């Protein structure tokens, strides 16, 4: 045990001190913070000035209704639109248009609406502007004009309606998600949580797996292995390495989790103090899901890390290792590809079957749990099967590791390579 501990410690300390680790650990939260700041800045500058618009109403009954409808407020409390001028059935339409065109070009005016006389029959309303790509503005205008025209039509059909907007307002569909214990409003956070967790799991499994592989490979190429193996058993070295790299992974997770907590706590406060209605998604992750996340990360890590470690032990250089690691990463990539399929129907027979295959379990079962908690027997069975598979892979990997060590330092002849293959 003492030797395993020493190996874990060495692995951990030397790894945590590398530039790569510091960069990876700090970069992710920094990027998140940077994105957050950028989004606040964007929110603050979002169409930050009131648009000056004019209305040319050839119909005659719409200018007032449209003006009333353009009542949206900007984030800073100012109105989004100011109707600077309305012309109802002017003597010369061309003259007005020409005048306003000049005003738009010079910037005095941001745009003008032209309402055709037979708008009620469906002739489109025109909006003339320099910036035709501001979708928020066009969406607003579209809604306001539509409501005004609906009001007009209602009036023409005899209904006296004052508050058209009130009447034509649609009804939202509120999605409620029923879980084991309660019901919660669903605004897409399940999807976001599922995506993020799967992404993190996939990335870190590959990342730490490759780390373990490199680490074993490095001991082979630098020939440190023979010195180590004269002092500790291959099993100690293997276990120490996997646990050591795993501990490094946990440290990284911890830093990320803490910074995520800080960002969400203080970020909201910062946004509030800047009077920005920053749309921070209020994501609630149930603690049970977090626990499952840790469980499946651990299972997946041990399963894949010992796989990757054996690749490192079997290969004798980086090039070989890259080719050999392909079959190991394949099940991970596959589970990641299955993502959408599983989410569409997390309890289909295929989803259940796939999520019980140990190599897919870590990602797919977590995905299913985050979407819709499967029956506990499935979770239990998946954990059991993955544990069994891990034991099997560790046993196999220890053999390959052992053989890799045996082959180490020898000029491998064809005979030796054949023997090696037979071993593995």
């Amino acid at each position, binding site marked *: 045990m003492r*030797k395993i501990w*020493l*190996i874990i410690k*060495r692995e951990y300390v*030397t790894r945590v001190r590398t530039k790569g680790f510091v960069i990876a650990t700090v970069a992710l939260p920094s990027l998140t913070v940077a994105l957050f700041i950028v989004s606040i800045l964007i929110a603050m500058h979002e169409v930050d000035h009131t648009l000056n618009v004019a209305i040319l109403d050839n119909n005659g009954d719409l200018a007032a209704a449209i003006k009333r409808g353009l009542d949206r407020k900007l984030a800073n409390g100012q109105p989004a639109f100011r109707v600077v001028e309305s012309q109802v059935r002017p003597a010369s339409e061309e003259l007005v248009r020409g005048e306003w065109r000049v005003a738009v070009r010079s910037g005095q005016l941001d745009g003008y609406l032209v309402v055709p006389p037979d708008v009620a029959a469906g002739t489109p309303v025109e909006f003339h502007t320099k910036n035709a790509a501001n979708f928020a503005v066009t969406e607003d205008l579209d809604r306001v004009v539509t409501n005004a025209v609906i009001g007009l039509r209602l009036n023409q059909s005899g209904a006296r309606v004052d508050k058209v907007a009130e009447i034509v307002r649609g009804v939202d569909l509120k999605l409620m998600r029923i879980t084991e214990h309660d019901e919660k409003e669903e605004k897409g956070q399940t999807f976001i949580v599922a995506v993020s967790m799967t992404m993190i799991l996939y990335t870190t499994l590959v990342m730490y797996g490759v780390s373990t592989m490199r680490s074993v490979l*490095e*001991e082979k190429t*630098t*020939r*440190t*292995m*023979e*010195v*180590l*193996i*004269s*002092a*500790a*058993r291959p099993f100690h070295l293997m276990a120490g390495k996997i646990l050591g790299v795993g501990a490094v992974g946990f440290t990284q997770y911890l830093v990320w989790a803490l910074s995520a907590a800080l960002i969400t706590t203080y970020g909201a406060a910062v946004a509030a103090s800047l009077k920005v209605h920053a749309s921070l998604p209020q994501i609630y992750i149930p603690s049970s899901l977090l626990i499952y996340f840790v469980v499946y990360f651990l299972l997946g890590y041990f399963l894949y890390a010992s796989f990757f470690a054996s690749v490192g032990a079997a290969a004798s250089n980086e090039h070989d290792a890259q080719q050999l690691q392909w079959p190991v990463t394949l099940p991970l990539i596959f589970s990641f590809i299955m993502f959408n399929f599983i989410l569409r129907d997390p309890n289909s027979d295929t989803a259940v079957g796939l999520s019980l295959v140990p190599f897919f379990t870590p990602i797919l079962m977590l995905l299913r749990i985050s979407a819709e908690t499967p029956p506990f027997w499935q979770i239990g069975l998946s954990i059991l099967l993955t544990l069994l598979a891990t034991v099997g892979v560790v046993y196999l990997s220890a053999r390959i590791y052992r053989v890799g*060590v*045996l082959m180490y*330092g020898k000029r491998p002849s064809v*005979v*030796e390579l*054949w*023997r090696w293959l037979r071993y593995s």
Partner: protein
Amino acid sequence: MTATTDAAVLERVTKRYDSLTAVGHLSLRIRQGALFGLLGPNGAGKTTTLRMLMRILIPDEGSIQVLGEPLSEQAQDRIGYLPEERGLYPRMQVRKLLVFLGALKGLPESEANRRARDWLERLQLADWSEKKVIDLSKGMQQKVQFIAAVIHRPPLLILDEPFTGLDPINAVVLKDIMLELREQGSTIILSTHRMEQVEMMCDSICLINQGQNVLQGELQVIKKSYGKNTVRIECSDDGAFLKQVPTLIQSVNHFGAVIEAKLHPGSDPQEVLKAAVEGGVRVTRFELMEPSLNDIFIERVSDAHA
């Protein structure tokens, strides 16, 4: 443990790599306190034998006892090992690496740290102790590797080609330390090609060839058994006169300034000298001596191949 206990005993140890038998039924006894030379041509099975002693390889047949007990993890901790292929973590600080390797061999870390400092001081590496291994020269790395082998004061020290890459000064430093460790009671197994080193340092040897024990015993006894059958001559001639007495001479070895001639059994060296004088050669040195280990080595190995 009595003084007569063997530090290592190999009984009919065999290691095969498929059809190739690297070591075949090799039996060895290495007396405690010996400075034992394991000799043999390239590919003779020296490194395989040492790796089996180190429990890096498991023998297919036979048994190995080390320090009075069968090989085990505990026994492994009492052996120091300098592998033929050097291996140190390139990006670790020298001192920290030594502390790690010392601790792995069972030393408390504080003690390992103290000893690492002492050794680095002694081998003139103190200035390099906080540097990374990769920044050190080959020779320095070699010394660090040596410290790693001896830091836990092992009763049995296995050194596979310890002098490669060292300049003469450092080679002497290492040799002195090895002799000193033997004084303190360590048994040292030394594998090398350099016969003159073995000749000067080792008290007993084993010569293996193609995985077989060809010759084993106390160096002095072995040399005596060959008798004084070699003459070393320094003279004004290139040794052409030796061709006049083919009945006396078995083989001639020219070293430039010196000629070594091996006599047929029963030949009288006096006759060789006579031939020289009669041939008008001025002899400045004429010495009757035991064969060098080098000669014995070459003879034994070429016999085996013949």
